[in-house]
């Protein structure tokens, strides 16, 4: 059994984790420009984490996770970001694992969890469809029971990293007659099953990190159904617990502001009162995001649970990230026409890259309009 990190004082754990990362995360993988590297690109880092037993911060220790408390998990994520560690294909760790731990059968846990930890199974998440994005419950991919198999037909889209995953967990419609939310189930599907086809989609940044996944008469063994039939909607909604706070993490905005700062210093913009005024607003918005984030972090550290109100962080953080990158293009003046990086003394600033990247977070993870709907209903309790 590995060390129980929860027993360490926070700062001791932070130092321990930090020092280990510095030793084990290869320098060339840190501060990668690419947001979503594929498994092969970050395999060394993935395996180093796996070997240490630190790949999966939240899973209980009995399943090979670190079993970190939310407070310690916050530290893990903070240091990860601060040290510029690359994102690993983490759907298995962040989504499939918790799904199976809470709702899977013993056989499913025994089969799948160790293979996530070893890197043998790389997962992706099949939720959105061409006509079911924000309105996810209207999804139409079907699974029909046929003896010991479900026959799956339909299409998923915006499936991040599907092209380098070998397993997918999909939301499928298993009862067409029921209310939209009531007839949905979760299936685990191996990507090399006949009838599964993946096509990558190039995004605005010129990377192909999300995909379309087509299912044509794909046979999925019945024992790959997670939880009860037609209960998938509830399962899907319960996968993210305290991790919802990370959707509102200030990390992206912090990074972008640091870039803006350097660009502005290089261009002498801090001498310009008009720029200073706009910069001050952005800087203070980031500072205040930190104060609000800390408020929710405190809840987690003291063992509490997050309410629906945590969504406010996601809305604010992602919109702030956008505004900061917009100011970078404003500051760039005619250089905003370039697709490649802006040159500053002793380095370069990926203004356009960040500006384009900032379009995505306000859309994914539940668009900001959906978040506002949730806040209106669940927190402010406004009428229908």
């Amino acid at each position, binding site marked *: 059994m590995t060390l129980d990190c929860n027993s360490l004082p926070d700062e001791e754990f932070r130092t321990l984790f930090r020092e280990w990362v510095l030793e084990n995360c290869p320098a060339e993988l840190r501060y990668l420009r690419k947001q979503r590297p594929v498994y092969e690109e970050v395999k060394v880092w993935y395996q180093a984490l796996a070997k240490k037993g630190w790949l999966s911060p939240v899973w209980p220790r009995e399943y090979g996770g670190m079993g970190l408390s939310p407070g310690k998990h916050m530290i893990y994520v903070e240091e990860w970001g601060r040290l510029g560690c690359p994102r690993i294909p983490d759907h298995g760790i962040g989504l499939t694992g918790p799904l199976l731990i809470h709702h899977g059968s013993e056989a499913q846990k025994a089969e799948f969890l160790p293979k996530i930890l070893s890197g043998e199974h790389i997962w992706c998440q099949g939720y959105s469809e061409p006509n079911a994005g924000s309105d996810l419950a209207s999804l139409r991919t079907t699974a029909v029971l046929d003896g010991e198999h479900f026959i799956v037909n339909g299409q998923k889209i915006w499936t991040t990293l599907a092209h380098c995953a070998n397993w997918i967990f999909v939301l499928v419609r298993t009862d067409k007659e029921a209310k939209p939310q009531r007839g949905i189930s979760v299936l685990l599907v191996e990507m090399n099953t006949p009838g599964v086809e993946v096509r990558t989609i190039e995004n605005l940044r010129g990377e192909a990190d999300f995909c379309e996944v087509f299912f044509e008469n794909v046979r999925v063994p019945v024992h790959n159904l997670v939880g009860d039939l037609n209960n998938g909607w509830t399962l899907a909604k319960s996968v993210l617990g305290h991790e919802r706070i990370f959707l509102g993490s200030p990390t992206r905005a912090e990074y972008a502001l640091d870039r803006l700062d350097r660009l502005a210093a290089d261009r002498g913009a801090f001498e310009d009162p008009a720029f200073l005024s706009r910069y001050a607003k952005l800087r203070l918005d980031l500072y205040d995001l930190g*104060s609000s984030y800390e408020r929710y972090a405190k809840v987690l550290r003291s063992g509490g649970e997050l309410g629906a109100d945590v969504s406010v962080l996601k809305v604010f953080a992602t919109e702030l990230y956008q505004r900061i990158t917009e100011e970078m293009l404003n500051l760039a003046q005619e250089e905003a026409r370039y697709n490649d990086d802006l040159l500053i003394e002793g380095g370069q600033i990926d203004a356009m890259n960040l500006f384009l990247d900032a379009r995505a977070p306000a859309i994914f993870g539940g668009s900001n309009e959906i978040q506002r709907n949730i806040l*209106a209903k669940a927190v402010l309790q406004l009428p229908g």
Partner: protein
Amino acid sequence: MPQLIMDDADGVLEMLRDSVAAFAQGRPGPQSLRQLRSSEADLDREQWQEMAQAGWIGLMLPEALGGAGLGIREQVVISFALGRALIPSPMATASVLSSALLATVPESAEQRRLASGLIQGQAILAVAVSAPGLTARLLDGAIVLDGRCEFVEAAASATDLLVLARCGEEDMLVSVPSDVEGLERHERPAVDGSRIASLQFSSCLVKTERLLARGALHTQIETAINLARTALAAELCGLASQAFNLTRTYTCDRVQFGKPIAGFQVIQHRLVDLWAEAEFACSAVVNAVERIEQGSAREARLAIYAAKARAADAATLIGRQAIHLFGAMGFTDECDIGLYLKRSINLGATLGQAESLRIQFIREERAA
């Protein structure tokens, strides 16, 4: 609904909240504010006396000066509750700033006299510490004050004025009797119905016994002002929070096109954004309190600038949008919602408005 969320193990904060709520039951804020406005007074002495009896005036004065020895945590809870109840008072300047100044000066009989009077509600201390042009000189064992100071609250009701003046290379903090000869007071109505004065000192003679402190006082004056800014930020959060609550209730009750207007998505999203502003302001104030308590002066200053700027912007934004969402009703004087906006504008511009505090934040942060 938005609230300052702070640990309250011994229940003191809850007690203070209840105490302000009970006070507001007896003297509803909007009513007091309208009365004050029509009376053209700058302070309701009777109300101030009751606030003193409740123990809210000079709350942060140390026990050695007869105070309760409570901290900024308790002060922001009081200020927030006053804002929420729209109770008009010069709390931030005539209580928080004046007592912070008194707590920072060397011991003297004058200091003790003012502190005890402040706590009992007998001494009303107006503060004039932000006029760079005020000068002092020593003449035959007296201090002679000259110059002008703007934006002084409770000047007409004051028994004493705490005045900062420049004397050669040093600063002097002097307690000036409000009826001193040579002092001219020019009062103007503030947007929320309170009053603000400008003071003209012309060869005003003050006894040297009234000299509270001398030397390089800039840092301690700024520290005192920052505590007042924190109280203002909390009061603004209270205003923002209540203006939001009233707007939420109104839009849930107001039926048009066959349903409450808060049922329309365009209104819902707007309400969510306003609520978020109020929540962020509350978190910013809690952060300021924690930074002050942690003791790093620089971190505390930055946090206070941020909190005051955020709270002022939130309260005025919510006030403006609230008026719009109340429709034509919101444009009437009879409807209380406008009072929240007006008070927010006044407090927001007191001791540094949002934009100037943000710039100050950047200057100090980048100077490091």
